[in-house]
């Protein structure tokens, strides 16, 4: 009798597993991104050289940010979250770059998947003054600028094409970011 109930449990487990696999596979199909251009990036389809997808985001402190309104300038887009240590570690570098290049380069830090008050508390505590965009639904990282990981940074040239993508980051990113900005200014 014990054998029978064990068998039933095992069969049920197997059924649940098959269902879970089915659901997971179906979900994967719904995911956007993937290898759109046949290019490999971390969970994404964007690569250097393609046109940066336009987006509109609310900004912390009010107002809106529309990417296409900044055509003609280099745009530095950094995707981050308050719980991500390397994201936080590279923000002072971005702040420094902002203070140095703000007349010629547009900076925006897109916070993903967090509520406004969480971001608000964080930004005011740290004194970051560059644009902070709010993407509470993670729409950009899910669909437009697909990436499974953060920090994720894209540098966009004055012509609207992506010049450099950074996957990952951390403390010592200042010189790498600056290099990418200068290179983009030349385009």
């Amino acid at each position, binding site marked *: 009798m014990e054998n029978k109930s064990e068998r039933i449990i095992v069969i049920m487990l197997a059924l649940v597993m098959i269902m879970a696999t089915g659901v997971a596979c179906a979900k994967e199909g719904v995911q956007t991104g993937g290898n759109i251009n046949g290019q490999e990036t971390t969970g994404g389809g964007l690569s250097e050289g393609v046109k940066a997808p336009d987006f509109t985001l609310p900004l912390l402190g009010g107002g809106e940010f529309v990417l296409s309104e900044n055509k003609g300038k280099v745009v530095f887009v950094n995707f981050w979250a308050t719980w991500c240590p390397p994201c936080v570690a590279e923000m002072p570098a971005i702040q420094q770059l902002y203070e140095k290049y703000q007349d010629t380069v547009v900076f925006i830090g897109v916070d*993903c998947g967090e509520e406004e008050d969480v971001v608000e508390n964080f930004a005011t505590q740290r004194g970051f003054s560059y644009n902070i965009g709010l993407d509470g639904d993670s729409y950009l990282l899910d669909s437009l600028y697909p990436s499974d990981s953060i920090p994720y940074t894209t540098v966009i040239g004055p012509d609207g094409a992506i010049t450099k993508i950074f996957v990952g*980051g951390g403390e010592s990113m200042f010189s790498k970011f600056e290099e990418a900005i200068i290179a983009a200014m030349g385009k």
Partner: protein
Amino acid sequence: MRKGWMKKRIITLTLLAVAVLFIVLGISQGDYYSTLQKAVRICLECIGIG
């Protein structure tokens, strides 16, 4: 012996009740959502890459 078993059972049931309470309280303070957010976006340094 019987008493020992009863005591143990009570502790087990209490633990289960506390567990359910914590889960419900946790969900109501938004923990499910924040667990989800951190699990669908990899922080590379957090898993030892980069």
